[in-house]
């Protein structure tokens, strides 16, 4: 009896968490007339996916998302890895700097958006890949630093000192001793930065129009002034969330740790 209740609860939970994702893909296979209330029984069609190729080309938006996510993640890692090492190894700034870094994550998104918008307008950076990339660097930098800080702190300093005694200089130590140990942490942080840039909507929505429009913004355009095109929207959603679904599966053991900035090891 207890076992039945237990499995019933598990099934209910899985159903609640996964049903919307299932419904995205189901809806994407529906014809326009089935969208409004056909439920589970309908004739599947690739009409919506064809729509994304022929009627409303959408490849560009996915490409923009990819460019901006990858570029910003590379810059974030280039800035955050050395900074996190410095924080972890030397306690630079006695913890105050670390708190200032993390506090950028507490800023409500729109607070920073207003000054950036005005500055970007002056610098002609609105609707450019570069501009959005910079915003995502700002958006992910503090998080990446904090998460990497947690990983660096786990590497014993005695290891480094021993290598230094053996005649290694700092660059050798970083390359041969630290980097192999920090690789998993770097991989996880990279994945998080990629996903959050990929999913980000507010900045993309405010700062891009046509040229650099990302998939998130593209998604919102299916909600027109007259009607919402649920079918093509679901198809586009299905494509846009696919990388994150794969990532969620690959990263499951590290997600909790990542989201809590390394404080909780899941």
């Amino acid at each position: 009896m207890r076992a039945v209740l237990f499995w019933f609860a598990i099934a209910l939970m899985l159903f609640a968490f996964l049903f919307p994702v299932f419904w995205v893909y189901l809806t994407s296979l529906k014809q326009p007339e089935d969208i409004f209330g056909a439920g589970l029984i309908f004739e599947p069609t690739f009409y919506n996916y064809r729509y994304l190729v022929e009627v409303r080309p959408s490849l560009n938006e996915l490409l923009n998302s990819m460019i901006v996510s990858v570029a910003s993640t590379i810059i974030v890692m280039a800035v955050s890895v050395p900074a996190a090492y410095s924080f972890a190894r030397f306690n630079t700034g006695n913890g105050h700097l670390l708190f200032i870094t993390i506090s950028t994550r507490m800023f409500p998104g729109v607070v920073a958006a207003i000054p950036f918008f005005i500055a970007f307008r002056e610098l002609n950076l609105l609707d450019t890949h570069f501009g959005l990339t910079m915003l995502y660097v700002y958006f992910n930098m503090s998080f990446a630093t904090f998460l990497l800080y947690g990983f660096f702190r786990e590497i014993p300093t005695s290891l480094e000192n021993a290598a230094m005694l053996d005649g290694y200089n700092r660059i050798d130590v970083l390359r041969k001793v630290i980097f192999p140990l920090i690789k998993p942490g770097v991989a996880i942080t990279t994945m998080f930065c990629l996903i959050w840039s990929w999913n980000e909507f507010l900045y993309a929505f405010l700062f891009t129009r046509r040229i650099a429009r990302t998939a998130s913004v593209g998604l919102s355009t299916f909600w027109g002034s007259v009607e919402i095109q649920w079918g093509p929207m679901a198809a586009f959603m299905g494509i846009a969330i696919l990388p994150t679904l794969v990532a969620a599966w690959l990263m499951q053991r590290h997600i909790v740790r990542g989201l809590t900035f390394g404080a909780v090891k899941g």
Partner: protein
Amino acid sequence: MADADTLTRGPSGAGDRQSSLSRLLNKDSTSKWLLISPLLLFLAAFMLYPTLYSLYMSFTDYIMRGAPNFVGLDNYRYLLDDPVFWEALGRTLFVLVACIVIELCLGLAIALLLNRDFWGQDLIKGLCFVPLLISPLAMSLMWNYMLHIQFGVVNDMLQAIGLPAVGWFSTTGLAIWSIVFISVWQWLPFSIFVLLAGLRSLPRDQFEAAQVDGLSAWRVFFLLQLPMLAPLIIIIVLLRTMWLMRLFDPLYGTTRGGLNTELLDWMIYRTAFVDFDIGLGTAYAMFALYLTLIGCLLMYKRLMRMMKG
């Protein structure tokens, strides 16, 4: 740090061949600042600038064209008397409290449920992570579709078990709860797995001893286990506060601020980017910023104290 410095200068005469950059890196006192300088540059550009600029703008009447005129505290005076602002703030706090309370209660219940070994546990837990990483905008739009009053699948299900259809996004009092629901759906796994990690790390023998001593499982949980989870609960509250203060996507995907669901972030967006009232918008924004920072700082301090204790 001093002894580390002498250590690094010691080795095998390799110093002669080193470039100046490498020499700088070898000294702890210089390398720590050298390594952190790119971050500091970015922080200055991306944190100092917007904060100071917003502060300045909040004392002006800038409307995206012409020159900003200094108006002193007018925007703040207006804000204090503005019922729309206080309503949005109240709603934001309501959503904050509702989401966090529901997530903690449900999360704890499910974490206790999952805190055992069962068949297929890795697969089942892995699937539960899905909502956390999916695009919040995509899922808000999907929930908007699924909760539609006429053709939404949720109402179909309700009617199938004999309940009436509900106007999730067409009833004024209910719309805000629908937003809470979407946010909880997305972030519940976070609470579950943080609390589960906490439960797993608790020492087991102590609780077994307590149970042998005649304490019921419920008493053991409330008297022994729950207090030990307190730091984790604070982490959840702290992080969720940070994220919920910037709740925007679920509003954009559903009500777009209508039906009494306008939250603080949406209101700032509307003031600054729809009405182009930068002065007032930045005044709202600064207010929201300080509120979040103070709230988070208090919790952060508390957390640090508990971690030490």
